[in-house]
């Protein structure tokens, strides 16, 4: 009896710690007709990275948050660390978000707005509610165009590594920030993003950040993208620059009338 009991315990233990068989994982992830994970839908983060990608206490208007950086440290070069602190002090006016500009990448991925993924065998498109931003990720094997090019949302070339979409992003401007806390980069920013579906409604998003002008080593952020599940959910528009202009036009109209 004793022997049998042990054996059954072992069996239970093995079952409970064994990795989920590959087939079960596969069935949990929606697929496109060509067998790739189907990333399509509306996605949005549920974290506080838009305010600060690092651990932070609450500030007025800013929810407290646990950072999204592996190890929590942004490995700034000494002069860049001083610049980050200056950015933080001046953030109310210096943050490019306050001008209504395109947010850049990866910042656009964790703004508190949804974005939609549309996918073909040759392209993965991301259309953003915020600022009508768009990323077109080529998955047709083409290389980055020859630089120098300064694009606000960079140039994205992707490939599938098994069930993970791996995207290489270069050709940035030095005008975008990484969050509202003044974390920043230069035009030598180079990202490697990994999109892995963890189930039908979750994407594990990882991004490795390199920038030899600003950081001492590559560093990594990771977070979950959640599917927006409301049955009537649609991508709408939030165009901050035009909302700013409209507000000013309205003030002027009231003044002259």
């Amino acid at each position, binding site marked *: 009896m004793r022997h049998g009991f042990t054996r059954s315990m072992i069996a239970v233990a093995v079952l409970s710690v064994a990795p989920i068989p590959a087939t079960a994982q596969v069935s949990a992830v929606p697929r496109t*007709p060509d067998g790739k994970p189907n990333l*399509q839908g509306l996605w949005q983060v549920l974290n506080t990275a838009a305010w600060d990608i690092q651990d932070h206490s609450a500030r007025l208007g800013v929810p407290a948050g646990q950072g999204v950086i592996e190890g929590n440290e942004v490995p700034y070069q000494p002069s860049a660390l001083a610049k980050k602190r200056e950015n933080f002090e001046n953030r109310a006016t210096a943050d490019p978000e306050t001008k209504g*500009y395109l947010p850049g990448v990866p910042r656009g991925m964790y703004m508190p707005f949804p974005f939609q993924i549309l996918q*073909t065998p040759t392209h993965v498109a991301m259309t953003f509610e915020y600022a009508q931003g768009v990323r*077109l990720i080529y998955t047709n094997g083409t290389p980055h165009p020859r630089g120098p090019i300064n694009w*606000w949302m960079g140039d994205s070339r992707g490939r599938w590594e098994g069930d993970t979409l791996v995207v290489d992003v270069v050709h940035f401007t030095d005008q975008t920030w990484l969050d509202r806390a003044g974390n920043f980069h230069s035009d030598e920013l180079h990202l490697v993003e990994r999109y892995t579906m963890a189930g039908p409604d979750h994407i594990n998003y990882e991004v490795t950040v390199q920038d030899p002008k600003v950081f001492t080593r590559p560093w990594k952020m990771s977070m979950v993208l959640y599917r927006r599940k409301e049955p009537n959910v649609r991508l*709408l528009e939030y*165009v901050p620059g*035009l909302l700013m202009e*409209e507000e000013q036009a309205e003030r002027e109209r009231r003044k002259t009338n």
Partner: protein
Amino acid sequence: MNTRRTDLVIALTVLIAPPFAAAQTPERPPIIAGCPTENLAFHTCALQKAKTFTPPRTPSGKPNLQGYWRSRLTQAFSVEGVAEDHPLVKDAVTPWDVAPPEIVEPADRKIPYQPWAAPIGRQGVNFREYVDPRTMCSTAGVPRLALQDPSQILQPPTDDHVLWLHEDHHQFRVIAMDGRPRPGDDVRMWNGFSRGRWEGNTLVIETTNLNAHTWLDDSGNFYTDTARLTERLTPIDPDTIHYEVTLEDPKAYTRPWKVAWALVRDRTPGGYELFEEACREGERDLGRIREQGYKLYFGAPWRFR
């Protein structure tokens, strides 16, 4: 590539469109897809051609409209066309090109404005007192997006959406093919909300929920927030789409009316890709424009009349 990079540098560092510069009129060859290229003649001919053309299909059997497209048979000045004796044709600074109307219906090829609306559009109040909304880096709007810059159509194989990407100010239109309802009337957007369906070989797109803060052309022709736009994209040969839009707006027009032109496949050797056309990020002119007494539009003339 070099020319396009130069364009980009100008876009990023100088300004986008100088506010009052005449738009370039794309070339108008004598024949496109075997059809004459005056818009009404093209429209009539293309609808006949469509009856016999079998377009390439996607793996799921839908007409395959994917690829890069450029508009033809278009001019940016006025959907009502530019007559030879139009004063702006001889304008010393920004002369307009003589051009036929893009309107193919009604027969007089004029916008059937209600009496109050005609003096606002048609180089009226909008044109004299307001700057073209594109100047402040907005979307050109529907259907003006399809009038000028290159675009790209993507059809995800799941057939639930069509994506129409425009180089102009990085605009995109996510066209819902899944039959779900549109948002309520109080949700208004610059590019509206677009639902699509296939009718034979034609992609039919119905757009509502428009904030109507955009214009139809350089002349300040317009619709209001009750507009419903029905676009029809019909392939008539492997490289040509007949593009037609029916504009309905009970607030501004007395009847529905139609424009039509061609979308021609880009065959740039070595391939083509859309570039990012950031606009607001390099914009430096709005302050000076305001100083000159011009106002930004946001539909003001019809919203607050």
